[in-house]
């Protein structure tokens, strides 16, 4: 009991939570290994493989050449031959050089084998900007990956979920894309979101893939988001509370499968919906969530839904421009005010 209390109060960054989940699975399952660029002695550019090389060595924690097509394709082949690879695409923006291995092989081999040749692997990749890295190193691309069938897609917003989702992803017999937002990693140089560093149990546990979390309960408005956007929503909810409004915050946690029920139940209660997404405005997560609510026969919206998303522009370098474009709590509050005015 004392140990449990102690472990429950131990806070970890998302990066350390990911590394801990990976290490725990590697200890119990010799099939699990990690490969990617700079995942070895460096411990990952974003810290999420730190300590693994020292514990497991170069055989199971493999630095690769800068050859994403080859090593992600190799992960597919290894997964179908009895291994459980965790492979890292350093920045999700780099998907352009290797998408074929991801969506034509990783995502389709299970289906094209009638389920007989599964591909149990994790593709972890960093998302998000906010630190002036411009449009080839700052995108989220949640919608891009979630749109293509055959891959589960998870997006944790905090260290607890990151550990549980990583453990679940490694144990899953399907390919799972694990999209972690850089601002949540606990790397100081990326503008760390403090709310992401939370208590994380020391023992291994899973967070169910496909189950959203109601992070904050409320009656007047439903805010739906994922990853770093959840923290913007929580700040907005706090601000709205001071105005006398009660906002419910839903953290999707998983895009595939998507927990539409939790969103619909919340909107059925509040009647108002704002979706917050750091990914592009059009054809993405925000549109999908709004459609999922609107097309349901039980839909009872009291106001037209809104979205606070990244504009349909490449991500600019200048801090003034990038920060202007990014979602934040003020924009969410303003969207809610507009919603009341529109009505």
């Amino acid at each position, binding site marked *: 009991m004392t140990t449990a209390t102690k472990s429950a109060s131990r806070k970890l960054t998302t990066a350390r939570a990911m590394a801990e989940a990976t290490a725990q699975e590697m200890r119990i399952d010799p099939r699990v*290994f990690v490969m990617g660029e700079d995942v070895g002695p460096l411990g990952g550019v974003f810290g999420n493989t730190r300590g693994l090389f020292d514990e497991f060595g170069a*055989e*199971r924690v493999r630095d*690769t*050449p800068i*050859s*994403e*097509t*080859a*090593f*992600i*394709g*190799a*992960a*597919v*082949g*290894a*997964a*179908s*031959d*009895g*291994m459980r*690879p965790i492979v890292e695409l350093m920045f999700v923006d780099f998907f352009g*050089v290797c998408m*074929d*291995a991801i969506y*034509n*092989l990783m995502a*389709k*081999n*299970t*289906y*094209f*084998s*009638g*389920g*007989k*040749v*599964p591909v149990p692997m994790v593709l972890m990749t960093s998302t998000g900007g906010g630190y002036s890295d411009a449009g080839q190193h700052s995108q989220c691309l949640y919608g891009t990956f979630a749109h293509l*069938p*055959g891959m*589960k897609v998870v997006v944790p917003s905090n260290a607890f979920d990151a550990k549980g989702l990583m453990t679940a992803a490694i144990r899953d*017999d*399907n390919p799972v894309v694990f999209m972690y937002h850089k601002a949540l990693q606990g790397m100081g140089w990326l503008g760390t979101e403090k709310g992401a560093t939370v208590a994380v149990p020391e023992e291994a546990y899973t967070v169910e893939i496909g189950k959203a979390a109601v992070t904050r309960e409320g009656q007047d408005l439903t805010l739906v988001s994922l990853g770093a956007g959840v923290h913007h929503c929580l700040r907005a909810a706090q601000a709205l509370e001071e105005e006398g409004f009660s906002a419910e915050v839903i953290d999707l946690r998983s895009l595939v499968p998507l927990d539409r029920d939790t969103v619909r139940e919340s909107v059925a209660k509040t009647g108002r919906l704002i979706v917050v997404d750091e990914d592009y405005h059009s054809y993405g997560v925000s549109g999908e969530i709004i459609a999922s609510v609107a097309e349901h026969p039980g839909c009872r919206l009291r106001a037209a839904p809104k979205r606070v998303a990244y504009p349909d522009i490449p991500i600019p370098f200048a801090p003034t421009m990038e920060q202007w474009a990014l979602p934040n709590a003020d924009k969410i509050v303003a969207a809610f005010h507009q919603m009341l005015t529109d009505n």
Partner: protein
Amino acid sequence: MQPTAEQRRWMYRHMVLSRYLEERIEALYMEGKTPVFNMAKGPIPGEMHLSNGQEPCAVGVCAHLTADDIVTATHRPHHIAVAKGVDLDAMVAEIFGKATGLAGGRGGHMHLFDGAVNFSCSGIIGEGLGPAVGAALSRQMQGKPGVAVAFIGEGAANQGAFHEALNLAAVWQLPVVFVIEDNAWGISVAKQASTAVPRNATRADAYGMPGHHVADNDVEGVYAAAGEAIARAREGLGPSLIEIETVRLAGHFMGDGEDYRPEGEKAGLTDPLPRYRAALLAAGVLDEAGDAALVAEAHERVEAAIRFAQQSDFLPPEAALETVFV
């Protein structure tokens, strides 16, 4: 490295089996597609890439492999699947899109997966390379025997995937063999118009691995090169590259008018099947009666697979929703 008499007959038998399968598929494919060619019509709709002429590549390599070894093949996969021992009934049923097919009809002829013999193929040029490297890595890490062979066409040697995969395999000294079936044409573009070097085998030098070149679609030349490369891989000495000059006796796909081929070029191609038959007869490895029996047996095997496919049902359409995940 010389094949035994038994291995020669094995290679010949699988060439016959593959060729007859292709001839029957060709005939069945054209059902419903005349007088107007519509790819969506007939008992076998969709693209169809026949392997006639390329059989030496498949049999010369697969003669050295067991079911436990891994093969990734291309969009033109039938000869390799036959030589690798893919379940012929389930393969033909898959080509027909039937419930009894390898994937219940979800994959079709370009996406054949038979886990029992570790065979897979992909419709995307060069994309079997990464998975072959990964399967080889899996065997190396698990300390299990087995080599992986990635078959590609000569066009794929100009893909980034080729260079990435060869480099990665060499860096990690993996038990993998890369086999280029050089049929001289990437759909309509001739090799010399697309490839900066006369021989792709020389590209092995760039990755510190042996490169073999097999001229003239020579069955036993393939056998010798593959034997050396696969033995090397089994001994843990790393990857090799084999380039085979082969011939595409059919078009890129069924319905290809092949107007791009220079006049007389196709007529000048040598069919490797009668040539190998003659060689085996001359060597006394095969006699006329033995050949007739072997051919009859192969034909009956193919006919049985076709009957199996034709008599099988389709899955209900809504089964399309299944097996996205396991």
